[in-house]
């Protein structure tokens, strides 16, 4: 595998998630953006026998890539060569039944306990900024065995307590809080991936476990509103490879709408990675 010479921050996060994709596991990709592209990237390069569904109930497709703009669900190319076609309740019901190993989703805000806000910034009903709502992410976060959250590393996103819980994390963080709220046993947030870092959870609290080579732990912590737990040893994530970014750019996000939507660029100067413009 060859080192990629230049890549965007968003591409970093997608490549990191792609490497987490496992053969023989099922994934529910929230919407049709970074979660779907991360899974497809992982499936193409590392885990061809990973299977996924999207909200329209497509089961294990072999999509005809690239998609046309905004046509990542329901379109013929997106549902091509599936093993079965269903509906949104198909996806909902299989996840209720425990068939979905992993949910992959993104968000605007995530808090200390992995709760997700994509609905409202500010106090609901008392001024603030209305956003798009949870979509399918609420059911993904509730019912998949493990959820992987993709977001950007920013103080506005990593906050102590989300303004509005659109999709459930560990709620108030107490043991059994999800079960008391009616959610299935032994489910919940598992990883958070940003262009800079990866987090897991210890006792239902977010914990920094890894960083990319070109960012320090302090820089990461500076982009968190509160101080997350720290793993005893902070691992260093592998940067994107040339194969990964090529595939992303030529077959998946060919128009760059998903990968370029946010974040700066990182360039390999022959000795080290340098953070470039953007952001």
């Amino acid at each position, binding site marked *: 595998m060859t080192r990629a010479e230049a890549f965007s921050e968003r591409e970093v996060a997608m490549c990191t998630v792609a490497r987490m994709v496992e053969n023989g596991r099922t994934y529910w990709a929230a919407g049709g953006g970074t979660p779907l592209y991360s899974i497809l990237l992982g499936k193409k390069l590392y885990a061809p026998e990973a299977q996924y569904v999207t909200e329209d109930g497509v089961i294990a497709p072999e999509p005809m890539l690239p998609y046309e703009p905004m046509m990542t669900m329901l*379109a013929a190319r997106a549902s091509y060569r599936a093993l079965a076609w269903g509906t949104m309740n198909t996806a909902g019901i299989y996840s209720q039944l425990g068939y979905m190993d992993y949910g992959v989703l993104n968000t605007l805000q995530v808090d200390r306990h992995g709760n997700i806000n994509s609905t409202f910034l500010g106090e609901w009903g008392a001024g603030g900024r209305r956003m798009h709502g949870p979509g399918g992410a609420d059911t993904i976060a509730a019912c998949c065995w493990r959820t992987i959250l993709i977001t950007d590393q920013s103080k506005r996103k990593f906050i102590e307590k989300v303004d509005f819980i659109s999709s459930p994390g560990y709620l108030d963080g107490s043991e059994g809080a999800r079960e008391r709220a009616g959610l299935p046993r032994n489910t919940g947030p598992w990883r958070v991936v940003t262009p800079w870092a990866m987090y897991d959870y210890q006792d239902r609290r977010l914990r920094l476990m890894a960083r990319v080579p070109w960012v320090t732990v302090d820089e990461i912590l500076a982009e968190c509103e509160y101080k997350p737990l720290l793993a005893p040893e902070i691992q260093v994530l592998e940067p994107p490879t040339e194969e990964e970014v090529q595939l992303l750019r030529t077959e998946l996000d060919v128009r760059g709408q998903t990968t370029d939507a946010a974040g700066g660029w990182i360039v390999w100067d022959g000795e080290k990675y340098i953070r470039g413009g953007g952001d």
Partner: protein
Amino acid sequence: MTTVSEPATIEVLASGTAPYHKIDPDGFREWVRDNKQRALVPKLMTEKEAVQKFVADGDYITYECNYLTRGPNSLLHEIMRQQKKNLWIAGKFTYVDVGMLVGAGCAGKVDTGFFLCTPSVRQALDAGKLEVYEYSNVIMTMRLEAGAQGIPFIPVRSFGGTDGFNHSGAKLITDPYTGQPTVIIPALNPDVAIIHVQQADKFGNARIFGTGISDVPAALASRKVIVSAEEIIDTEEIRSNPGLTKIPYWCVDAVVEAPFAGYPGTVPGYYASDPAVVMEVFASVLRGAVEPYLEKWVFGVNSHQEMLEKNVGVAKLLDMRKRETIRGGLRA
């Protein structure tokens, strides 16, 4: 084998506080008895007639799937042209459509789901012209599923613990069978559903190919159902393969022949999208500049066919059809 000791009551642990569309299973049954044609009666009409007859101001409306994929766009446009007011919108799996309906002045309430929350939506919210109640996509389609069964509520395994729950019609109860906290959600029986399908006969027997969101539940759960179809096929064709019928005629009140009704989006197996116009609508809704788009594509024409004629043209339609090369399972 289990025998659970019987509580005399079921505890309600929490209740959302939002208004929800009226739940009245017996009233819905009576509507069906008095309004749904069990005879095979031809229901072909124009989009204009269908919307005049079956969409009223203040109606709760659901549609399948959305503006970009198998969208009932000829009917959505007509609703905007007829300036229907104060609609309550099932905002599940929507994209640009809610922003368009708000921009056109048609929307009064939204149950979300998901929708692009655009400047015009935010203005309407701030001005108190729009109310939003909180659900999620699957919670909305499961509400429709309950409505489609004629039952007042259904248990679900998601939604608990969210703030959406608090601003919804959901409840958390102690399940009398397992004793575990369980979320129940209110059924949804919209006043009207508009659904675009690939094929239908004149009575409303409809075929849908490919994946979907909640076409069948929406058709069963709604008091009035308008189906638009790429092609009207003969009932003999329907009878030749009953396994392909997704919605039976008796649910359907109006059938509109509407080739390319999904424009600028795709209808799987029939045509690919028009990417330039998809980006145009997306950008204009997102930027809150929806009026020019509506002016050009909705208000500036009298019908969907006129729109195709004036704004699209044969070459583009043929190209969209040509680019849709996948047929397996998408054409009868």
